[in-house]
């Protein structure tokens, strides 16, 4: 018996791959440079202090408008304070969305910090808006070019001042 090489008839076939994709819950977050060092001079308005890149994410799709704000307390050294009312935040003019983002937040107006300073060195100012967005704006964004100006009154003692800047995303 002669066995001839087998030959498979030409044919087409299909193979199904089952895919299960779970869309996990979105998230809300803000990331700021952890630290910023600057030297200030007394008797002048120290303008243009770069605040670095502020990154924020809103993928909650919760149907709520959302915003990014900033506050500060007084900066203190011993019993001396640089009041938050002497500080002005300027919102970074450039907001870029990562791939997949829908829409772009509006740049906030920024402005001088205000509020009732009940406990100097502890009390945070009223919030100032760096960015606003409607509910349809969703994604991952970076805002660049934000700056801070600090008026240091003449005669303010020299030293290493401490304080806290707080960035908040609310959605």
């Amino acid at each position, binding site marked *: 018996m002669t066995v001839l090489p087998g030959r498979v008839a030409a044919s087409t076939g299909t193979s199904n791959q089952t895919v299960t994709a779970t869309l996990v819950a979105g*998230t809300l977050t803000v990331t700021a440079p952890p630290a910023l060092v600057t030297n200030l001079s007394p008797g002048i308005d120290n303008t243009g202090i770069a605040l670095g890149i502020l990154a924020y994410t809103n993928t909650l799709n919760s149907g709520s408008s959302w915003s990014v704000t900033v506050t500060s307390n007084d900066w203190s050294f011993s019993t001396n304070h640089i009041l938050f009312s002497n500080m002005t935040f300027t919102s970074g003019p450039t907001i870029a969305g990562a791939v997949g983002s829908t829409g772009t937040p509006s740049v906030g107006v920024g402005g001088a910090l205000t509020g009732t300073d009940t406990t100097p060195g502890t009390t945070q100012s009223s919030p100032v808006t760096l960015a606003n967005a409607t509910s349809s704006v969703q994604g991952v964004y970076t805002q660049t070019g934000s700056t801070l100006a600090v008026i240091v009154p003449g005669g303010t003692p020299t030293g290493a001042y401490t304080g806290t800047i707080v960035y908040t995303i609310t959605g």
Partner: protein
Amino acid sequence: MRARLRGSVLSARRRGALVPLLGLVALSALLPLGGLAADNAPEYGIHAGLSGATTLSKNHYAYALPQGGAPVHDSIVVSNFTASPISFDVHGADMLAATGGGLAPAAEGVTPTKVGAWLAVDTATITVPPHSDVSDAFTLSVPATTPPGEYVGAMVVARRPDATSGIRVVTRAALTVDVTVLGNLVLQAGAGPLVGVEQRGDVRFTLTVANHGNVLFTFTGQVTVRDSVDHLVSTIPVAPQGLYVIPGGHADVTAVWHGVPLWGSATATATVEAKTTAGQRSTVTSIAVQLSFVPWAIISGAGAGVAAGLIALVVFSLRRRRSAA
């Protein structure tokens, strides 16, 4: 962030010699030494515990309760996207209107008096392991005497700062908590004052939108400009659109009218349409603002030209008389 005030250790004599240079020294001291974050990837994130698992239109944290209703139990989930554990403070807070529009929870450490006081978390400080989620339960208890209306607060997750000295940077993420105590809900928006200021050939309008009712609303709006014979000249949407205004709060928005006429007058009014999450709508119009345009630069230039011509004519006449004499 460290802010260091520069001092001088120069002797009085040297200091005197260098006084003219101090301004330059001060300016050079303004170099921002802060570094950008090496990686802007999110370190953490938050979402509602039942996010995606309910049929509520606002996804979550929107509660409609009868007066004296039973407490509500819910949760917030904190995710750590990094390879190191991160500690957070979790708490309820009252909501504030931010300068420039938008909302923000009250500052850390501020004792809440409204919605923030109604929220009690199970664990006020949590540490989330690397690449993990932690759910923190909380209870909303609305006082039985709370009158009908819509109340807004927030669940706040604050990342504890790494630095222990210098000027620290704290980040917070907050989810809005929208509590409606059922009863007579009143949508009452206020539009105004409307203020117009001419700036380099444009008019920049600012408008305050106030919430005099007891229900949260968002709004859209526009400024309508008409000329002296009531013809429509321009319709300008206000920005930003879609801001929330909490009961008792207000938001400031702007609109810019480009290409104003050189001469003439106009009237501007702002119209705001407020809308609640339940779909209730209300439209209000501000008091009209009168605008007048006079080309003072051209008039003063022309006046100066005429005056110069007259002076030249007088001088020329005097010289002719002298030469004739």
